[in-house]
């Protein structure tokens, strides 16, 4: 650990406590400009969230304390039930798919193939493209009658291709595909960094012992990138639970279309809070989202700790 002035071990002397004070003042003076903004726009609102969720506050100002009434109402709200289930459904599809695709891509780019630098750049393009452009282009690509995707599917003999974003069953898988397409370059970079920490000697030793390519992947690569796998899983899970912008640019019908097939928690909060101005009620759903993310992250940390012990 580094420090500006290393305090000597021993009995506290006046000189030492003066140094401590000086360091504290200097340390805080560095942190303060950022911390003021950080506290104001992040810490304070997070604390306030819990208070607002217990009131019936609306857009016009202070609300009255209503206890847990919002949460009771929430449990019986069909839109909330759908958005909760859909959020979990999205995460269950999106997390494994993105891990498999981005790890596969990272493995490919970690090999001695030609042109990997170009592909690394290409893989990043979706991630730096705005969500509005992504939403629009994919909306038209997935268009059931005129879109290129179904055209290609028909060409390959699929007589009745799915209605994708307009269909009850296929809307969520379509959004998962788009989301994975957008994010895979980002997680690929994380995996690539992880893969390069695995020592080449281990692969050589495994090869000597006669391990084939799958055995090497299972017994050398996967254990070697465990910290990266953990980081990616945590980040991806939180990102899935808060999915919002992609949904909102892809479903212009909002929470109604098609038949609530793609409504998610964040969208519910936006709908009840900003469209219908029920700040208190929407905040109770926000508390649910908050708890969901924190609890899942803590569980993942505990599992990871147990495994590495």
């Amino acid at each position, binding site marked *: 650990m580094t420090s500006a002035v290393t305090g000597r071990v021993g009995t506290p002397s006046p000189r030492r406590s003066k140094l401590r004070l000086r360091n504290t003042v*200097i340390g805080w003076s560095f942190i303060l400009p950022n911390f003021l903004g*950080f506290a104001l726009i992040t810490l304070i609102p997070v604390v306030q969230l819990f208070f607002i969720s217990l009131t019936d506050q609306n857009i016009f100002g202070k609300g009255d304390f209503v206890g847990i009434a919002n949460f009771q109402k929430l449990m019986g709200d069909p839109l909330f039930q759908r958005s909760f289930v859909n959020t979990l459904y999205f995460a269950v599809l999106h997390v494994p798919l993105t891990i498999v695709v981005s790890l596969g891509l990272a493995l490919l780019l970690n090999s001695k*193939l030609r042109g990997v630098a170009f592909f690394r750049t290409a893989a990043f393009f979706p991630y730096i493209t705005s969500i509005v452009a992504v939403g629009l282009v994919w909306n038209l690509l997935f268009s059931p009658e005129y879109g290129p995707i179904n055209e290609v599917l028909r060409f390959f003999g699929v007589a009745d291709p799915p209605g994708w974003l307009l269909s009850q069953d296929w809307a969520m898988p379509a959004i998962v595909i788009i989301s994975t397409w957008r994010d895979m370059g980002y997680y690929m970079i994380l995996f690539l960094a992880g893969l390069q920490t695995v020592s080449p000697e281990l692969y050589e030793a495994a090869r000597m012992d006669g391990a084939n390519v799958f055995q090497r992947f299972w017994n050398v690569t996967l254990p070697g990138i465990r910290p990266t796998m953990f980081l990616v899983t945590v980040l991806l899970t939180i990102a899935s639970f808060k999915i919002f912008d992609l949904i909102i640019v892809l479903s212009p019908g909002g929470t109604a279309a098609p038949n609530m097939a793609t409504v998610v928690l964040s969208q519910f909060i936006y709908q009840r809070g900003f469209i219908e101005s029920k700040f208190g009620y929407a905040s109770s759903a926000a508390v649910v989202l908050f708890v969901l993310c924190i609890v899942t992250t803590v569980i993942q940390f505990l599992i990871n700790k147990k495994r590495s012990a």
Partner: protein
Amino acid sequence: MSATRMIVLPHGTRADRDTRPAARVGRVVGSILLVAFALALLTPFFWMVMSSFKGPNEVFSVPVRWLPEVWHVDNYFALWIDTDMAIWLRNTIILSTVVTFLQVLTGSFAAYGFAKVRFPGRDVLFLLYLGTIAVPWQSYMIPQYVMMAQFKLTNTLVAMIVLQAFGAFGVFLMKQFFETIPEELSEAARLDGLGEYSIWARIMLPLAVPALGALALITFVNTWNDYLGPLLYLRDKSIWTVQLGLKNFVANNVTADYSMLFTGLTISVIPIAIIFLLGQRFFVEGIATSGLKG
């Protein structure tokens, strides 16, 4: 984790390639997979750019036409007259520049405090920063909005700046980097009589150019592409950003002039694509270092 570790792609010369038949088959399969990936990644972009040159009714045609029949370059002129693209671009450039400047400045400043000055409560404070990574913005956007409304900041560009300029991300990224700079350097500077602020400005910042570049690039791209913040806060047309403007252009596109829409999308992506291509080394290293998007 070493912050400055580069992601080096293996450079295989032909000579040291494995020439066994199995390895050769593996290479062919790998190359085919790579090309398939690249096609899946880039086809939507190709379609977007090509559609921006098509005629108004040409975007949807069965069977799909990938290239325009006649190249409508005029779309790229008409867009500036038909929409407020110039205003949206101006707002977005102002916003992205100011946010990036503030984030880099306050982030690297605070990171020095966390990485190089030891004082009571420092580690707890940093944990607080770190913990907010697991908290989605969507969960506290309502109290944040209520507070901004009390300050009369809703419907202003200032709100967007305040919202994005003080993230934990910059602090985290820069702290990781500063910790890799040997303590002997600042120790020597202290002996020469330099104060902590001068050490930050004259020693740390010049050494941290790659990390600063990564942070600046990531912040700029994220601010440029942000859609939700502007959606909640910016009501007046005069302060709309490119993303918000284009989304409204879509929604009000009664004539369904999709080629014009694609022209707008292409224009909105070009600046980011250029910036990314120029600085992608920083970008990739920054993300691999911190593991975070900001």
